């Protein structure tokens, strides 16, 4: 949270309409996403009850577990879900592109030209997939507790997707509420924003309703069924419990079929509004102009997708229950590096995000009032170090001597602050520039900001993704538990209770 977003909330509350907090969207929005709206049975651990799933708004598949306490029925559900999800994912493994090798001695790399993108209504949907993955990836397709081949395969994919969702720069698994609040601020609190219907009420209220009316309606579970995975306790009592009981007690198949139809219809009614809203959210966000680096981040998602497909085709062991010490450290390192890059990229793409930096004085925007592209200094030899002066009204916290500042328009040029002087509420910043001007003693035209130009300098930078140095699996030092035991499929895992 920041003052900029806080002000946007105030404006939203005042105008009764959500306000943009970004000028461009930073999320990749797929043109063929898969939407999944899951429901679970209260009281049990991630016990599937129903789901609405599909890659076209007008054509959802409705999956229902008529007797959700029966283990076999749960696996039947998972198998059907697996068929849909896996065929969607497989659809992206046909077209490959070849990229030059990263290092000299490597082979050229291949990666898929597209990757899957799964949407769920809220973070609860992400957690659902994580638990679903944990529950199914260790299952075996042979032996006493055999399940269909798709079950453990879905488990590995669900685990992978949920893992990616931990990184804010990844767009392969998206929670609609988070995607929306990343772009709009509402006139309610972030707690209430967790309710997809209330949030959408602020962004796009139904015809004839104000945002506040729409948000209020969204809190009534009868008018507006919750977005799940948990169902409304009233629905459980008045609709679900009687239907489940009638199914147990059905005297004939004909009755059972009728009750099942009734149950399916009722569950469909619970999911349909959420299903529609997720698609509406995708449409609204997709219509926004994407930021300049969205494409690049999606390419990184495609890289990771390609790697995972290769992994599955190779050993394909299910992911461990807990990360080994080395893997844990590597993930932490990745997380920090990706987070920093994501922050920088967003700020470079979007003046509102850069505004956050300027508010805290870590960045400033101003007009160039003086420019000397030919300035040189003598180090061991004479070198070109152009100088400029920028006049800003921003509340600067940077001081003389601060170096390694960059302007998003010239990412290869570093600036350091020589002097600051203040007059009439404005600060003049004298900067020395280095890089991005070629090798000679004259800077090519345009490579140095000219008088009158508007520039922004900050400490943010996009670093190249140098993977950290970590010991290989089998070199894990004893201080970190030694080399991890390779995963060996255990029958006990495959037989694990699901009750």
């Amino acid at each position, binding site marked *: 949270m920041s003052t900029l977003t806080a002000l946007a*909330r105030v404006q939203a509350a005042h105008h009764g309409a959500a306000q943009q907090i970004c000028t461009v969207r930073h999320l990749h929005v797929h043109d063929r996403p898969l939407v999944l709206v899951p429901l679970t049975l209260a009281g049990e*651990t991630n016990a599937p009850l129903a789901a609405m799933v599909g890659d076209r708004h007008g054509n959802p598949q409705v999956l229902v577990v008529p007797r959700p306490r029966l283990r076999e029925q749960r696996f039947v559900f998972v198998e059907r879900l697996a068929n849909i999800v896996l065929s969607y994912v497989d659809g992206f493994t046909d077209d490959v592109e070849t990229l030059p090798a990263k290092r000299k001695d490597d082979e050229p790399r291949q990666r898929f030209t597209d990757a899957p993108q799964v949407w769920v209504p809220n973070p609860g949907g992400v957690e659902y997939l994580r638990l679903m993955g944990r529950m199914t990836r260790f299952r075996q397709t042979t032996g006493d507790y055999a399940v269909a081949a798709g079950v453990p395969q879905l488990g590995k994919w669900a685990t992978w997707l949920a893992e990616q969702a931990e990184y804010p720069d990844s767009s392969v698994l998206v929670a609609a509420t988070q995607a929306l609040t990343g772009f709009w601020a509402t006139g309610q*609190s*972030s707690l209430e924003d967790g309710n997809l219907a209330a949030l959408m009420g602020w962004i796009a209220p139904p015809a004839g309703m104000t945002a506040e009316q729409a948000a209020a309606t969204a809190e009534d579970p009868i008018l507006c069924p919750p977005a799940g995975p948990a169902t409304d306790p009233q629905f459980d009592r008045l609709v679900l419990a009687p239907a489940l009981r009638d199914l147990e007690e059905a005297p004939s198949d004909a009755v059972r079929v009728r009750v099942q139809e009734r149950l399916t219809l009722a569950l469909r009614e619970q999911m349909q509004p959420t299903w529609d809203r997720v698609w509406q959210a995708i449409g609204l966000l997709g219509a926004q102009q994407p930021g300049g680096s969205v494409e690049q981040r999606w390419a990184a998602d495609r890289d990771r997708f390609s790697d995972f497909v290769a992994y599955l085709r190779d050993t394909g062991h299910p992911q461990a229950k807990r990360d080994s010490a080395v893997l844990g450290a590597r993930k932490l390192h990745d997380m920090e590096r990706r987070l920093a890059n994501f922050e920088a990229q967003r700020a470079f793409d979007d003046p*509102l995000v850069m*505004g956050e930096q300027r508010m805290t004085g870590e960045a400033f925007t101003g007009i160039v009032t003086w420019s000397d592209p030919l300035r040189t200094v003598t180090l061991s030899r004479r070198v070109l170090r152009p100088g400029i002066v920028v006049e800003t009204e921003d509340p600067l916290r940077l001081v003389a001597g601060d170096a390694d500042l960059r302007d998003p328009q010239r990412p290869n040029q570093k600036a350091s602050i020589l002097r600051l002087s203040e007059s009439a509420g404005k600060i003049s910043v004298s900067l020395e520039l280095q890089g991005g001007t070629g090798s000679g003693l004259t800077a090519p035209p345009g490579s140095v900001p000219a008088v009158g130009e508007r520039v922004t300098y900050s400490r943010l930078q996009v670093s190249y993704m140098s993977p950290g140095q970590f010991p290989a699996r089998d070199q894990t030092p004893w201080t970190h538990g030694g080399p991890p035991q390779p995963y060996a499929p255990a029958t006990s895992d495959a037989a694990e*209770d699901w009750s």
Partner: protein
Amino acid sequence: MENTEQRLSRLRGGGDPEAHNARTIAAMTRNPGCVRRAIMDAAGVDKPAVAAAVGHPTSIGRLSDFAVSRGISFETRVKSEGCAELLRLLREQLGLPVPQAHYEDLGSTGKGETVSGRYLRSKAMLDTAEQGTGTLFDHPLLRLSISGVWAYLEPDLVAFQLGEKFYVIEIKSFPVIDGVADASKVAASVTQSAVYVLALQSLLSEAGRDPGLVSHEVILVCPKDFSNQATATLVDVRKPLAALRRQLSRMDNIAALLHLLPANVTFDPELPAMELAQALTQASARYSPECLAACEMGSFCRAEAKGSTAILGRTVREDLGGVDAVSTALELATGRLQPTKDLLQAAHVLRLAQRMRTEALAR
């Protein structure tokens, strides 16, 4: 002169005070600065009835029947055969040296025993329990004084005595998966356990024993992974315990807060809606969005706080430099309002934010 107890009774519209339970007592610590809540809780006002009467019905604390029955069946399992499963966990998982355990059921005898009678029985049993052996006390009846009125608590828990120490054991039905449980659920049950710890401490002091004998670690028993198997964890409750003590002592001083209310005000749910709503506004509230999940009055107080920055959340309000009203924040930001001295800094930041937003969105 009306005494405090009489005033509290008149506040709730006569009749018996609402019975508190561990959940409602735990919830009292959630917004300790709110006078409205402190008074309503102290008087035992039927908050759900009041909320409904003023047009803001609440669903707080409402659970799915499925969740309830799962909770019961898990608890039954863990406690079956004289808590055999529980004892195994205590020995094997927590490594407690339980030689041979006794099991005492302190549940209601059903023979017309009064609540206070049952409490005395619990007290006697817990007091005279033989030391040195492990004893499990099932269904003890405990009580806590809430602003001078006894609230009886009938936990589904077990108090466990080992050596000198008493432990509170709480059985919950949310899972611990690969060693990790949902943090918000853990936090909620820890606060509830703290209520029991406090009640057990007060029982021991009444019996003339050292309340310090109650361990500040409670034993949380949950289903393991996706199964019906149980797993046990020791959890420290010192922090919620301290918060609870503070709030309860605040409510013991309820007389001081009552003086803030005009003498004719009552929160009788039978009052006409307008009158009741009017009465409520006489006790100052301190709304924040967290109230929605923690207090039955949440929806009413939110509607009352309309136009204030409080409804946007605590951090938002802080980011706005503590400015109270949405309109003030906007007018300061656009420069239409000259800031008073205490708002100078806030106004400066808001104007800057306004400039940045306008600049960025115009381009």
